C-alpha cells in the first residue's frame, strides 16, 4: 500500500517546512539592530513661547510643574548653555524665558514676583 510512503512524505514535508521556518526566524532575530533614534524636533523656536515649549526647553513634564522643579531644571539646563561658559546668548535667554513662562511671570499674569 502507498500509505506508509505518503505518511513518510508528509513527515518529510513537515520537517523541511519546520527547518525553513526556524532558519527564517533566526535570520529575523539576527538582523542588524539599528538603535531607534529619537527624532529631533523640527524647526526653530515658536514666535511666542507657550507653556508646552517652555516645559520642553527645561525638560520637565507639564504635569509636574512646581516652582522647585522649574528652578532646578532651569539651573541644570543653564549649566549646559551658560553664555560665559561657551553657550549662546540666544539659547540662554530662551531658557530664562521658559522659566518665566512656567513660573507665571508672563506679561499676562502681571505677577509681582
Amino acid at each position: 500500500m502507498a500509505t506508509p510512503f505518503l505518511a513518510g512524505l508528509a513527515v518529510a514535508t513537515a520537517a523541511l517546512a519546520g527547518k525553513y521556518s526556524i532558519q527564517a526566524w533566526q535570520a529575523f532575530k539576527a538582523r542588524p539592530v539599528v538603535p531607534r533614534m529619537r527624532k529631533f524636533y523640527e524647526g526653530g523656536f515658536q514666535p511666542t513661547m507657550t507653556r508646552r515649549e517652555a516645559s520642553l526647553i527645561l525638560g520637565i513634564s507639564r504635569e509636574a510643574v512646581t516652582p522647585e522643579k522649574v528652578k532646578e531644571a532651569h539651573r541644570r539646563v543653564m549649566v549646559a548653555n551658560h553664555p560665559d561658559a561657551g553657550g549662546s546668548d540666544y539659547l540662554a535667554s530662551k531658557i530664562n524665558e521658559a522659566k518665566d513662562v512656567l513660573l507665571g511671570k508672563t506679561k499676562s499674569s502681571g505677577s509681582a514676583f
Partner: protein
Amino acid sequence: MDASKNGVAQETIQNAVRRGSKAMSKQEARQILGVTEKSTWDEISQRYNVLFERNAKSGSFYLQSKVHRAKECLEALHTERGQGPV
C-alpha cells in the same frame, strides 16, 4: 526681566514672520549657535559639537534638537558656498 520686550522675543517674531514656514531661518540658526555670518564652517562645527554634547548631558532633548537643526540649516549654506568657483 520682561521677556516680551527684550530683543530676543522681537527677533524670534521676525524670524517667524520672515520664514512663514516651519523651517528654521538662517538668522535664527546663527543665533542659536552663537555665530555670525562671517563665521567659518570650522567655528560653526565646533560650536555645534560643544552645545550638542552639553545639552545631551545636562540640557533638554528639545534644545539639542534646536542646536542640531541650526547646524543642518547652516550646513546647506556652507556646503553650497564651498562648491562654487573660487
